[in-house]
């Protein structure tokens, strides 16, 4: 379970960053998250929805102990992210859309590396790796350098890396970004499977089709603040607009308009982006 309680995150800006923000911006810092609270339950898929720059990645990085909240607390399976960072990371699997893997290693070596970092004995790590590789059909390229693999192959390796230590909490940061339909579908299936196994699944996206497909619970984040928090069913039932996209726009406009700094909100349906 993930409990995010009143979390705020402020980033100090460098002179260059202030310049990039434009003349209207006069502050020296930016609030990436403003008093955000939500809970992700085990056995459910929680979707963090928001346009680019809403603060989704910052929230996920705080949960994964990469960043410290300026205010508030986060617990993962009852473990405090500030004080028990290492223990949190032992129960957490984190995957990003960039499928960032070490190009000069082979899938075999990469997965074993992360297993060892998680304290799994080599024999057990190899047993788990072989099982994953059988399931995901990785064996045919398990000894090939990752730099030579296709995006889909890399995605399979990335999934194995994320799950090798059997985390009870899974965090996916725009995990399907840049993937083709087949690869994206395998990620969706994986999320469902993990949910069915009783694990906590949190994923961030800006794609409405993924929300419809996967979300049990939903939080909408806009300019660092939560605009909606509840079940997807409740959100859908209370929809005032005809489509999910229109409803999303209506919700974020209700809390201060789609733009705070002159940038258009981008939503997507399927793989096509519409401004």
């Amino acid at each position, binding site marked *: 379970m993930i409990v995010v309680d009143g979390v705020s995150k402020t*980033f*100090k800006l460098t002179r260059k960053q202030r310049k990039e923000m434009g003349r209207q911006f006069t502050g020296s810092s930016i609030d990436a998250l403003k008093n955000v609270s939500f809970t992700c339950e085990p056995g459910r898929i929680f979707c963090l929805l928001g346009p680019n720059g809403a603060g989704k990645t910052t929230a996920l*990085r705080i949960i*994964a*102990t*990469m*960043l*410290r909240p300026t205010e508030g607390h986060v617990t993962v399976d009852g473990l405090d992210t500030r004080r028990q*960072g*290492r223990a949190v*990371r*032992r129960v*957490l699997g*984190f*995957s*990003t859309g*960039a499928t*960032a*893997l*070490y*190009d*000069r*290693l082979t899938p075999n*070596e990469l997965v074993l*590396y*992360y297993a*060892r*970092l*998680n*304290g799994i004995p080599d024999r057990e790590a190899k047993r788990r790796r072989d099982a994953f590789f059988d399931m995901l059909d990785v064996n045919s390229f398990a000894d090939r350098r990752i730099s030579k693999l296709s995006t889909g192959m890399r995605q399979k390796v990335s999934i194995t*890396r994320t799950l090798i230590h059997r985390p009870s909490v899974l965090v996916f940061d725009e995990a399907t970004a840049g993937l083709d339909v087949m690869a994206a579908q395998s990620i969706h299936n994986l999320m469902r499977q993990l949910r069915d196994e009783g694990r906590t699944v949190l994923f961030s996206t800006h794609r409405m089709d993924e929300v419809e497909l996967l979300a049990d619970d939903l939080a909408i984040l806009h300019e660092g603040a939560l605009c909606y928090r509840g079940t997807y069913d409740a959100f859908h039932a209370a929809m005032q607009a005809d489509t999910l996209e229109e409803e999303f726009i209506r919700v974020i406009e209700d809390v201060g308009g789609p733009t705070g700094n002159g940038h258009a909100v981008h939503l997507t349906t399927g793989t096509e982006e519409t401004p």
Partner: protein
Amino acid sequence: MRTIWIIFGKELKDTLRDRRTLSMMILVPLVLVPVIVVLVTQLQAQLVVSARAPLIRVAVVNQDAAKGLADLVQAQDDMRLTPGVAASGIPALIRNDKIDAAFLIHPDFDERVQRQQSGQIEMFYESDINVAVTRERLREVMNDYREQILRQRLADQGLDGNMVEVVSVEERDVARRQVILGRIFGGILPYFFIIFCYLGAMYPAIDLAAGEKERATMETLLTSPASRFQIAAGKFWVVVLCGFGSALVSILGLYLGFYLVRDMPPELTRALEEALYLDRVAMLALILLPLAMCFAGLMLSFSIFARSFKEAQSILSPLAIITVLPAVVGLLPGIELTPRTALFPMLNVSIAMKEIIAGTVRPVGLMLVWVSLGLLAILSLLACAYYFRREDVIFRS
């Protein structure tokens, strides 16, 4: 400790598979150092030979008027008597490089000498870059001839020829050979080691910090149970190993270079062999290890701060010059390993290496250098770990 070891093992494997790092770490020192050694030793050997015996072609005009002078010139190993030169042709022959110098003996020379008077000889030479050497040696011949005549005069008077020698000076160079060697090679070799230590560490440092940030693999590593210190330490030791390894390979390159050099003057071969005695190489290695640690900490700190591989490269490349500059001071004459210089980073390394190669290093001085470098190495590791912990650095974009 186990986690650091795991990260170290993976990063080392990753680094050794990078062609750019491998070439900078192994190929460049192994090829470049022998090439430089061959060129430098050949040049040095040439200089030794040319400084030892540049043959001077000398004409003695009217040699009948000064008995013995032509014989004296002929007897010199480094002079060749050129016959058949007329007085009027001397300047033109020297200018046209037919001869290097000439003695023009006045016709009444012998007669005046017989009368116990002063005979006159004109000495011709051309002012060029070797004028000091030529003139000095012509004067030596003339002094010998002068002394020969003087002794003859004294003997004619029944006096001892030695009475003209009021003071007898015998020059003896008491400098030990290893000191001379230290001066010659100690000034050059530390640069090889320092530069290759730096270059060998640079690419891994960039790749393992800025490169990993750029490739977004850092994020997944940060979500593993490894702490930031463990991540920094694992990477740190890989960079240390690469820098240290590269410096050692450059020493190997030196051996290879000396092996490849043919027709090296024997004294030069002996000198180089002594400079690379195993005990001295071992002492050099003990200096290079903390040096590589200092470099690793410094480079990783800058590298993790950089937004990209390119930015890290643009920071670390000029830093090489700034880092190596203090070592240049170690070349200046009179700079020795004192308690003060032993504490000055880089300067202490170059002086210590110079004295190790010369075989004149004192244990106290060496200890001070180790302590100073060791402290700096620990500080650099802590700085590196500090930067790895800072959110604004690790996610700087």
